[in-house]
């Protein structure tokens, strides 16, 4: 489904060019559950954001279902993100001025096509499934971290994406809550066949995925299949 070919991403810090990741070759197929493991600053998040089309590589190609996405406009990339990609973050990244329900519905506001589902029905379904139905009219900062992350997962799933990208999803949660979230992701992968890419620096978390990639100093050092 997603193929990364010789990907490099570099930034300019003043006049110095800093390579975040380089020489990445990676293929993620439908229904996979991939963990990207690496220490902080290893470039794992950058890699994840490139997979999620939030960032374009400086070199190399990203092929999405065979299509080179480097040629796509911001508009087209945003549509693909909206339809096919769901993000989950360490900081939950909910918008605090909107209620739980409004947050979950937000991706539907950016849909440029007619949805094949009723947004409110789907939101209700997700709220119930993740046990946050009672919290639907709460503002995110009034609910627990675990609940916030569930809201974030519900939001990520709203548009029935092909892939979920989770950046340290348990990083801000205690181990018990973190475990629950990981279980939930496992379930989603198993039941809904959603492709999941999970980025983490914790071995224990990475172990829960089906396939791990170790990244160090911007390069893939090991692929466990």
């Amino acid at each position, binding site marked *: 489904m997603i193929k990364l070919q010789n990907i490099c991403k570099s930034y300019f810090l003043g006049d110095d060019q800093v390579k975040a990741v380089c020489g990445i070759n990676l293929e993620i197929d439908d229904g996979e559950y991939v963990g990207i493991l690496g220490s902080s600053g290893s470039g794992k998040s*950058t890699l994840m*954001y490139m997979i*999620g089309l*939030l*960032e374009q590589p400086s070199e190399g190609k990203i092929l999405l279902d065979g299509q080179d996405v480097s040629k796509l406009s*911001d*508009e087209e990339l*945003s*549509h693909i*993100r*909206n*339809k096919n990609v*769901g*993000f989950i*973050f360490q900081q939950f*990244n*909910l*918008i605090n*001025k*909107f209620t739980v329900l409004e947050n979950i519905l*937000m*991706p*539907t*506001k*950016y*849909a*440029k*096509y*007619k*949805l094949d589902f009723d*947004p409110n029905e789907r939101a209700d379904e997700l709220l119930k499934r993740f046990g946050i139905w009672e919290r639907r009219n709460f503002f995110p900062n009034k609910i627990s971290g675990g609940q916030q992350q569930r809201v974030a997962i519900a*939001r990520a799933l709203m*548009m029935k994406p092909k892939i979920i990208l989770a950046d340290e999803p348990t990083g801000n949660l205690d181990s018990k809550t973190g475990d629950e979230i990981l279980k939930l992701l496992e379930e989603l992968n198993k039941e809904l066949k959603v492709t999941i890419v999970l980025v983490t620096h914790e071995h224990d978390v990475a172990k829960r995925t089906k396939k791990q990639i170790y990244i160090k100093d911007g390069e893939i050092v090991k692929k466990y299949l």
Partner: protein
Amino acid sequence: MINNGYTELLRSAFADFRRSKIRTLLTSLGIMIGVMSVVLLIALGLGLKNYITQQFESLGANLLFVRPGPSVSDSGGIQGSFSGAIGGIKFDEKDVATLKRIGKIDYVVPVYFKGVSISYEGKKKFGYLIGTNEDVFKILNLKVLKGVLFTKADAQAGVKSVVLGRKIAEDLFSQAEIAIGKTIRAENQRFKVMGVVENKGDPQMDSGVFMPYKVTFESMNPDKTFFTIYLGVHSKDDLEAVKIAAKNALLKRYNKDDFSIVESSEILSTINTIFGVINSVLVAIGSISLLVGGIGIMNIMYATVTERTKEVGIRRAIGATESDVLRQFLAESVLLSLIGGLLGLLLSSLIVLGVRIFFPASINLFSVVITLVISSAIGIFFGVFPARRAAKLPPIEAIRYE
């Protein structure tokens, strides 16, 4: 945003306004004041125009002014009342007699006019000596407040009795009725007050000391001349004919450019032109505050963009395009500006309503439309730069922004 469109933009904008009510209010305040000053200036300008139009209409529509100098439009003067054009010829009794021979004229009223100091028992006030005949009260629609007006016989006899405008009467005597029978002094002469006429709204008439013109012939007007002559035409339909006849009659004595005969409506249109210019200048000045308000909006929007960098990142991640973000912020600045504009309109309407008690100020559709257009335009113009900054934020950096 097919399935939500503008309602979603509005909803989002109002969600933000609710969170920062004071800031929203203060930002809108700038535009509010700007719009208020512009609308009020237009309203007052309009009121002034209405007021003057009313004054002219109360003079009567069938009035012709015979004035020295070329016509109003050439000289650009607005001296429709007593002052007359500066320089040029002066009319005399012979001209009055000439004009009286033209048919279809009800009144021929010569006017000698001089601004002087008028005193009563040591109290001095500035007023206007108006040497004229008994028909002046009819032609100018001056209503008796107290006492009586001088008659044709008085005028012909040249009695030293005067009729005061209400304002000068009250200035000198505190109450108009006290004035009757008292003796005032002006130009080293004594005059007995026989009557007081109601204010007309014209400062020269309201502070006028009306007297038979013969009285002025003694020392203050030894040339026995008049600045202007009013013709009260019998009917509106005769205006043009009388104008031509009067012109021809006077041309026997004077050159074409020595005098002019104008209708009150002509003077009115000149006044309107002048007020149009004054009003534009005032509105331009008022617009400066709109500009300042706009800069205020821009300032706040930049702050808002910085504050909501993370939100922009989140929205971008879940599929907002650059133009979605641009629209979102633009909607906010336009809304801020429109709220300010509407508040300004509302407030100035209230003020105008209050002012109307004294003065016929009015808000027309034009001001309402222009207010809405201008405040939207300001919102767009000053909002587009901050909105562009938000739209161009790199999503990753935005999402990591704390």
